[in-house]
């Protein structure tokens, strides 16, 4: 029985991981067709020489960095607040932002921006994308940081305050250092989510804020290209390392 389960589990692991592995292997294929013709880095070179891809990658990095910074700060404070004092409306808001389908969040932000632009002199661009990304990342940061907070001993902060620390000092000097790994894990997951998003980004991006997933999507719609295989491999490898580190931190 348990042998059978192990064989079965191996098959599921293959199903989960083989598609990406095969994609990665074929990104090193010298041929542009699905026939192996020998090892080559030509598609990686082609990707790096593609200025549209490089530009989009720069945009994606800037957006992900900014969105991570803002949502990690907001999310950590929010998790801390919720840990101290439950708040039904905030929790409800976080749940709603977690379950809202991406396409609905995208169009609602688009509709909101368009309405706002009647009164403000701004246009769609990197900033609108960053704001959208902060919105869908926020709940994930709260989730990860709150899970970490719940493993902490509340008496530590009380002790600090008994010894004369203000609430802010107790948070800054006692809780935040203990929370460090949780915050770092939340930030890394945020970065991964933001860097990867296509659906919401494509709806709220301006003409000058094309991101890497948008370029990959456009290329994928036109058909499979070995350049996309190469870029995909880089992304999966990069995000994979980031997430493994985050998972390590979360469980430390």
């Amino acid at each position: 029985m348990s042998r059978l389960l192990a064989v079965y589990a191996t098959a599921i692991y293959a199903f989960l991981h083989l598609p990406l592995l095969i994609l990665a292997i074929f990104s090193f294929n010298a041929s542009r067709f699905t026939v192996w013709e020998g090892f080559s880095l030509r598609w990686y070179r082609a990707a790096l020489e593609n200025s549209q891809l490089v530009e989009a990658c720069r945009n994606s990095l800037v957006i992900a960095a900014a969105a991570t910074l803002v949502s990690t700060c907001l999310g950590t404070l929010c998790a801390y607040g919720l840990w101290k004092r439950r708040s039904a409306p905030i929790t409800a808001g976080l749940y709603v932002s977690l379950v809202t389908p991406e396409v609905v969040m995208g169009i609602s932000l688009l509709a909101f921006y368009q309405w706002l632009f009647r009164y403000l002199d701004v246009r769609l661009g990197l900033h609108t994308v960053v704001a959208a990304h902060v919105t869908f990342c926020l709940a994930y940061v709260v989730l990860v940081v709150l899970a970490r907070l719940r493993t902490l001993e509340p008496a530590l902060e009380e002790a600090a305050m008994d010894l004369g620390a203000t609430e802010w000092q107790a948070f800054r000097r006692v809780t935040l250092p203990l929370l460090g790994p949780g915050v770092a894990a939340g930030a890394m997951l945020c970065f991964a989510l933001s860097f990867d998003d296509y659906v919401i980004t494509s709806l709220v991006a301006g003409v000058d804020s094309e991101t890497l997933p948008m370029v990959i999507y456009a290329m994928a719609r036109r058909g499979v290209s070995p350049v996309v295989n190469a870029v995909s491999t880089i992304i999966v490898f990069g995000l994979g390392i980031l997430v493994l580190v985050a998972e390590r931190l979360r469980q430390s």
Partner: protein
Amino acid sequence: MLAPAAVWMAVFVAAPLGVVAAYSFLTRGPYGGLSEPWTLENYVRLADPLYLRIVARSFRIAAVTTALCLLLGFPLALFLARSGRRKHLLLALVILPFWTSYLVRTYAWMFLLRDTGLVNTLLVEAGLIEQPLPLLYNEGAVILGLVYGHLPFMVLPLFAALERLDRSLIEAAADLGARPLQTLFRVVLPLARPGLVAGALLVFIPCLGAYLTPDLLGGGKTVMVGNLIQNQFTAARDWPFGAAVSLALMALVMLGLAVFLRRGGERFL
């Protein structure tokens, strides 16, 4: 401490949904803009058989995906719950793909399934088929992509439920003469029910509103509610109708969330 996040969500979650709610009662203007009068027409249009078919298809695809995830995920969760010290590593291997680019993972299936993809190439070379099979751009491909993307959501709560399960109950059932399958259906499954319900909802809810997978693997032929919404806001330029569809979808999603929170789903927050 809560104020910054509260303000952020009021501005970027509540207000946008409010705008969409207001738009859903307006009329489409002559050039795709918004105009008065206020009307319920957009919601009435949802009953048009053309759109009902899309809603029905979305439900069908989400239901089949959930069932498949359950069938595939349950034995895996059982395996994980019993795998002792390596448990966390093996669990991480299930979750890892979830965090690494959904877009790339969907694209990987395009690479495998298209006419000149790896599967068809291998089958043709092996002489099993002469013409490539139409594996991509159909409902089957969409379901495959969704199962692939959502399996971790099913495995995690099932694993949590099975791990908590008292093993002496299984031994007791065996001592009392239950066969393994009887133990599974009469003891293990009823006890794992909260995890089952949570996993099913965690798969069903996002699949109902899926956009990217039907778009890429369905090739625009397998239209789901998410694609309908996106289309109304882009190509069709009928924002009021798109807004009404969005609100209807949100209502369904909220219903799913309410059931999830009521029925033993883990409180993440």
